[in-house]
C-alpha cells in the first residue's frame, strides 16, 4: 500500500491500528502511540493493557466518567472495557516480561538496525532520569512496534547504525512506522522497507540513513 503523500501523525496511528491482528493483546506507550486506540475498531476485539494494572482498557474518560482510581500509564483518566480485569503491579509486569503481550507500540528517540531502542533518556547533562515502564515494555512484548518521525527536527535520521542515545532495550524492535515508510527489522536479515508513503523512494531512504536497506515493497 502506498499513498500520495507522507502520513500525518493521525494517519500513522491509523496505519498501525490497521496492522494489529484481531484479538491481539496490545500495550500502547505514552505519547503518540496512545492515539492508535482511536483507530481500533470494535470488530478487531483488540484488548489493551496498561501496565498500572488493567487489561481491557477502554477509551479516555470524560466528564462524569472520570474516576481518580481509573487511570492509564500516562496517568490520564480512562474507562474500563467489557471483559476487563485488574491486577497488581508485579502481576502486570510479569504479564509483560513473560512475553504474553502480542504487541507494544512505543515512541523512540532512535532505533538501530539491530532493533536496539532508545526512548527513555536524552542523556543530556542535568536531565533527571525517569524510566517508568519503558525498559519493561521494550523487552516484554512479542512484537515491539515503534512509531516515530524518521528524522529529528534538525534532519538527522533516527533509524541508525548504532544508538547514540542511552539504550532502553537491545534487539527488541521488530517494526518501525514513520511518516514516509515502514521498516521491518530482523536480527539476522537486517532492515527492509516494506511500505512507502509519498514520493520518497527506497534509494532516498538509503541515502538519508546511510543504511543497507532491503527493498521489500514488492516494487523494487
Amino acid at each position, binding site marked *: 500500500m502506498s499513498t500520495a503523500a507522507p502520513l500525518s501523525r493521525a494517519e500513522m496511528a491509523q496505519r498501525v491500528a490497521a496492522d494489529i491482528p484481531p484479538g491481539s493483546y496490545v500495550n500502547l506507550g505514552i505519547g503518540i502511540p496512545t492515539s492508535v486506540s482511536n483507530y481500533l475498531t470494535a470488530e478487531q476485539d483488540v484488548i489493551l493493557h496498561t501496565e498500572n494494572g488493567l487489561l481491557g482498557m477502554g477509551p479516555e474518560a470524560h466528564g462524569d466518567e472520570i474516576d481518580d482510581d481509573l487511570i492509564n500509564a500516562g496517568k490520564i483518566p480512562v474507562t474500563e472495557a467489557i471483559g476487563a480485569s*485488574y491486577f497488581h503491579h508485579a502481576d502486570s509486569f510479569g*504479564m509483560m516480561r513473560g512475553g504474553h*503481550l502480542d504487541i507494544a507500540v512505543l515512541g523512540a528517540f532512535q532505533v538501530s538496525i539491530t532493533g536496539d531502542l532508545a526512548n527513555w533518556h536524552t542523556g543530556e547533562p542535568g536531565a533527571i532520569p525517569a524510566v517508568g515502564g519503558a525498559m519493561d515494555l521494550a523487552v516484554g512484548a512479542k512484537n515491539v512496534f515503534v512509531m516515530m518521525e524518521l528524522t529529528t527536527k534538525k534532519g538527522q535520521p533516527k533509524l541508525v547504525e548504532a544508538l547514540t542515545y542511552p539504550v532502553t532495550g537491545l534487539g527488541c524492535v521488530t517494526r518501525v512506522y514513520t511518516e514516509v515508510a515502514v521498516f521491518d527489522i530482523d536480527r539476522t536479515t537486517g532492515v527492509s522497507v516494506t511500505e512507502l508513503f509519498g514520493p520518497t523512494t527506497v534509494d532516498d531512504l538509503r541515502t538519508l540513513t546511510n543504511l543497507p536497506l532491503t527493498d521489500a515493497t514488492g516494487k523494487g
Partner: protein
Amino acid sequence: MRGVMVSKIFDSVDAALADIRDGATIMIGGFGTAGQPVELIDGLIRHGARDLTIVNNNAGNGEVGLALLIKSGFVRKIICSFPRQTDSQIFDETYRAGKIELEVVPQGNLAERIRAAGAGIGGFFTPTGYGTLLAEGKETRTIDGRDYVFESPLRADYALIKAHRADRLGNLVYRKTARNFGPVMATAAATTIVQVPAIVELGQLDPENVITPGIFVNRVVLIEKEAE
C-alpha cells in the same frame, strides 16, 4: 466489513487437544483431585500423544485422571512434589518397574519455578531445599547471611487446568482450594487449555475479581456436570 468476535471457546475436548504432539511437556492443574481437569486428562489419553513430560503436584490418585494417564504408558517423566500417597498405587508400580522418570521438587519451588516461567524471570534464589538431597549439584549462594539455591523457570507446551467460570475471552475464576496451581500454570504454557462447568457472558465476571486474565488462556471447553 463486520469482523468475527474473538472467542476462545472450543466445541470439544478433542478439538482443544488436537495439536498436542509426542514429546510435549504438559502442566496439569490440581492438588490431589481438587482442581484436577479430569475430562481434559481423559481426552489426552484418547488423543494418544506419547513420551510426555507431565508437571503436577502429585502423581495421580486412584485409577482415574492423572493416574490413568500414567497407566496408559504415555508419560515418560513426571515433575512433581509429592508422588507417594495412600492411593498412588499406579504411579508406585510404574516407578518401581522403571517405566517412568521422576523429578521431585519442593512444592513451593515448583510453584515459584512455574511462576518465574510465566513472568519472564530467568532464575531465582530460594532458601527452600538448601542443604538437602534435592539441591545436590545446584548452584548455591549466601545472600545477606542466608543460604539459597538457584532454581530455573519451568515452562510447558500446554497447561491443562480446571476453573469455575470462564468467559469467551478466557477470563477465569476458580473455586476455593481448587484454585491451587491453575493461575500460575496458565501463565507458563505456550497454550493453556481450560475446562469449566459453566461459561458466562462477557462482562459477568467482576473485573476486580478475575483471577486469571484471558491473556493467559487460549482454549476453553465446557464440561457440564450435574452437581456444579
